[in-house]
């Protein structure tokens, strides 16, 4: 039988980030999918091995521009486990506030992009307008809008003053109303419903079989969240609730993310209320024992896991990072097969793929396929 192969990406107007999909079509219907990644190589895992533990906090924060503090939180949690230090309570709450605000900005950005994919640009404008409140709040706390760099080994870098907290609470109150409006919009708007219902269906068994994580898994009724499983930072004190939906289609994934935003707002407000005066960091004892540790956090896209191996020097011997999008990419085939070509952008977007997280391994190459060594890269920076 004659089949048509349609290349989709790596640079495509409907894809905000580079992934190359090979779609095998029979008429309009997708019969098979193949994909390839690797267009965003930054060589960070190798670079982490060649930089000391303290600089690595900032390097890990630069793996992804959206979930920057999820990466640096996971890395610092791992190193703190290695050094066997417990950070002060205030630092824990500040980390929670930044993580939850980051989840809010990530989900709002995603909702905007979903609106854009389905040709509903008003939703894009709305989501990005509300996201501005989140970025403003993050700037108040950390001094930066996007890559926050609030974490350090042993605590956080900036204290939260009373004035900032007052402003923050005000911003969060405004946001609550805005997000509630978006939730109603997502539930009731006929355009969003028609473009997302029954698209990219994954049932609970598929999720368990393919080992999927995060909002994608929770939208299919899997009750799993690292904030509950690991109870890291202060999530145990905050009485965190897991948000799930049952249907497992793009519409359920949208609802899970929008409802998670409301939960994040609640957590952030509660964390602010719990903060008591006290130190924000402890001075770590600077001997790195030979050990291997693993740390996990719930990034906006799901479980992020770091394996850190120390060989007793001031640099890690190995850092292996498994990002949530990397785990979820495998479901592309299941999501797309049986749908028409026109549904591809919405179905792919419903996974919330973040490819700068996924493509973070090994060595950087330029257009002529010459390998740039880490040292050369360093020199390059100074010229």
């Amino acid at each position, binding site marked *: 039988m004659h089949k048509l192969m349609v290349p989709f990406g790596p640079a495509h107007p409907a894809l905000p980030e580079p992934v190359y999909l090979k779609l095998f079509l029979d008429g309009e219907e997708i019969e098979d999918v193949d994909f390839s990644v690797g267009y965003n190589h930054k060589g960070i895992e190798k670079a982490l091995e060649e930089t000391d533990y303290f600089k690595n906090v900032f390097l890990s924060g630069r793996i992804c521009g959206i979930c920057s503090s999820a990466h640096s939180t996971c890395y610092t949690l791992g190193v703190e486990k290695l050094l066997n230090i417990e950070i002060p309570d205030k630092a824990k709450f500040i980390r929670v506030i930044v993580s939850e605000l980051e989840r809010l900005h990530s989900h709002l950005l995603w909702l905007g992009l979903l609106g854009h994919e389905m040709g509903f640009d008003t939703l894009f404008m709305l989501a990005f307008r509300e996201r501005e409140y989140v970025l403003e709040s993050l700037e108040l706390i950390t001094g930066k809008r996007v890559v926050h760099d609030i974490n350090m080994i042993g605590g956080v870098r900036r204290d939260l003053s009373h004035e900032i907290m007052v402003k923050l609470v005000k911003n969060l109150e405004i946001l609550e109303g805005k997000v509630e409006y978006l939730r109603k919009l997502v539930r009731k708007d006929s355009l969003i419903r028609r473009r997302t219902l029954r698209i990219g269906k994954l049932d609970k068994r598929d999720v368990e079989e393919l080992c999927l994580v995060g909002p994608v898994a929770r939208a299919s009724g899997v009750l799993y969240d690292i904030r509950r499983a690991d109870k890291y930072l202060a999530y145990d004190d905050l009485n965190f609730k897991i948000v799930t939906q049952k249907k497992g289609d793009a519409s359920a994934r949208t609802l899970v993310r929008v409802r998670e935003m409301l939960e994040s707002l609640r957590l952030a407000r509660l964390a602010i209320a719990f903060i008591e005066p006290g130190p924000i960091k402890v001075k770590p004892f600077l001997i790195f024992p030979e050990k291997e540790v693993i740390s996990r956090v719930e990034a906006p896209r799901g479980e992020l896991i770091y394996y850190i191996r120390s060989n007793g020097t001031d640099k890690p011997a190995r850092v*292996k990072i498994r990002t949530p999008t990397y*785990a979820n990419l495998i479901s592309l085939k299941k999501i797309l097969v049986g749908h028409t070509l026109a549904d591809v952008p919405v179905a792919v977007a419903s996974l919330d793929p973040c490819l700068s997280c996924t493509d973070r391994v090994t060595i950087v190459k330029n257009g002529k396929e010459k390998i740039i060594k880490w040292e050369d890269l360093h020199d390059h920076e100074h010229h």
Partner: protein
Amino acid sequence: MELKEELNLIGKIYREEEKEVWSIVPYKKIRDVIEDVFLSRINRISSISGYDNGKEIEVIYHFVKDNSLINIKVLVPKKLNKIETITDLFPGAFLLERELSEMLGIKIIGHPKPGKLFLPENWKGKPPLRKG
């Protein structure tokens, strides 16, 4: 039998913490361990890490069981340089095994789609995460 007891029978648990079990399993038994002991009791595979310790390649499988992590380590001798796939048991290992294979230069026997994942197809250099 308890999972930990069985692991201690086949291999050895070398570290145990709250919500974490670290064990080492003989190279030849890894596939049997995962098929017989793990398949029915584990929620999912979370990650596979690889590390070149000079003599061997250490491959560490990180499995999720409810709220805890079970880490299984295998030492792959550099002379043999190959390990059996587990993608047929856990489809979630599909990309993880391909990455392990290209970054540390281990052959994965029986992988449904071997080949480069992140590296360019015409990559000629040594595996990037091999030491020395």
